[in-house]
């Protein structure tokens, strides 16, 4: 029955939701059908009635209060799904996001800025150390990581746990075991080649200590910086004749080192040991095949000075 359809759709008509063709049909029907016309009128009046009632609107105070509360909450909120987004740009993000003061000094930038060189520093008050007698006037603590950030509920108190590496200073002479230990550590482990160079330089003054010699050997063999290797070589040079390990490492440097300066110096320093069988073998190879003219000719000269072997 048409009337049924019309009655079901009168509400939609009142709200303007009918498609044009359906609206046309409905209007046509209502023009002819008294029942449906009355129904339409009632529906219309009801709609008007509802519209007479006042509509509750949020007061400006409420809007402001809601916005402020949201703003506060946003400061500590985190966005999820960063890592899935292609558009994530860490540097840009850091520029854009404003941190509240409480968090600003604690955020670890290391991971984003990349590179070991950048780190946040927090100044830590340190009492003088009675044991070593050293008194660090000011100690810096480099933040290496944030363990946890928690907010006390209902307050604006934030508790942050963070790990630091603190920088201390100690003084002494080369004979101090502590100094030697630190120098040995520095020679191997520091990413800063300048520091490694300084430490190796100092260690060359004490090459008779076996650990020191070890450190120099290690530096000559593995250090990536040719200046450091050269320094180590200088320190070891005097022991080529007496210490087999030193001779071996110097030979290695002579044959394998990427830096011509290091190789030349190694050749010069191996000279006192040229009578040794293994040294002679290397010299012969160099004399025959080496890329560097200088090394080739030097090797030949050295070999020429040796007595013939039966």
């Amino acid at each position, binding site marked *: 029955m048409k009337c049924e359809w019309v009655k*079901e759709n009168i*509400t*939609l008509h009142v*709200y*303007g*939701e009918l498609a044009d063709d359906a609206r046309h049909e409905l209007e046509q029907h209502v023009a002819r059908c008294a029942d449906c016309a009355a129904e339409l009128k*009632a*529906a219309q009046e*009801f*709609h*008007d*009635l*509802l*519209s*007479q*009632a*006042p*509509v*509750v*609107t*949020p*007061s400006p105070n*409420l*809007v402001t*209060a*809601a*916005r402020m*509360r*949201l*703003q506060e*909450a*946003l400061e500590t*909120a*985190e*966005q*999820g*799904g*960063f890592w*899935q*987004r292609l*558009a*994530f*740009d860490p540097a*840009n*993000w850091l520029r*854009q*996001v*404003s941190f509240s003061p409480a968090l600003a000094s604690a955020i670890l930038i290391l991971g984003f800025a990349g590179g070991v060189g950048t780190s946040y520093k927090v100044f830590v008050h340190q009492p003088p150390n009675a044991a070593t007698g050293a008194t660090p006037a000011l100690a810096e603590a480099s933040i290496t990581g944030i363990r946890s950030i928690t907010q006390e509920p209902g307050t604006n108190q934030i508790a942050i746990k963070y790990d630091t590496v603190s920088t201390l200073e100690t003084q002494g002479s080369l004979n101090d075991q502590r100094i030697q230990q630190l120098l040995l550590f520095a020679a191997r482990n520091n990413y800063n080649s300048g520091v490694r160079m300084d430490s190796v330089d100092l260690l060359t003054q004490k090459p008779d200590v076996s650990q020191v010699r070890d450190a120099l050997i290690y530096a000559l063999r593995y250090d990536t910086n040719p200046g450091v290797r050269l320094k180590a070589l200088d320190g070891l040079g005097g022991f080529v004749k007496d210490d087999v390990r030193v001779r071996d490492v110097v030979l290695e440097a002579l044959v394998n080192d990427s830096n011509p300066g290091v190789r030349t110096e190694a050749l010069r320093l191996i000279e006192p040991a040229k009578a040794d069988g293994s040294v002679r073998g290397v010299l012969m190879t160099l004399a025959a095949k080496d890329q560097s003219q200088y090394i080739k000719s030097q090797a030949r000269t050295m070999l020429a000075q040796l007595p013939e072997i039966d």
Partner: protein
Amino acid sequence: MEKVSGNLDPTWGRMAGQERRIDDTILIREAQRGNRGAFEELVRHYDQAVLRLALHLTGTEHDAQDVYQDAFLKAYKNIGSFRFECSFYTWIYRIVTNLCLDHLRKRNVRKEDAPVVKDASGGEYDLLDQVPDGRAGANPERDLMRRQLGARISGALEKLTPRERMVFELKHYHGLKLRTVGEILHTTEETAKNTLFRATQKLRGALADMR
């Protein structure tokens, strides 16, 4: 132009609407990159409508603020997964309506049948006291009748199911097309139409004695 007495029309002129759409896209992308300022600006485009919706459905300023807060925080946390498959408008309304529906369902369970609403301090008061009336004092009798009507309507709305109430609210008080209502509520336009029909029938029944 549709009849708008007592009904706040959220649509602007067509041009302005389109401009707003472009603005939103830029703001959304910025917000996705972590730009909190952009997100806050985006919030300002929608928050009054959201607050109004929350206020109508929850009945108290306190609850409305809670819904508002939860909705926008959720939006902030999840904006990264917004893929422009629908308008931001639909997306944010979805979040708000879900929160409101939860609220309505919880209230139904507690079986509060009082049509009078509670204010922030828990005291009962007439929410309609909040309504600013431009013609206050001009016709006190008329004002009283309007307020009584308002109270009656609030009472009648309480009798609807949460979904019916939501559809009615979105259609009648926010002027949304039923197609949009369907999108927001994750249902079809047809279902939304049927729901609206049922809602208005119930309301007419509840208010049949009124002229």
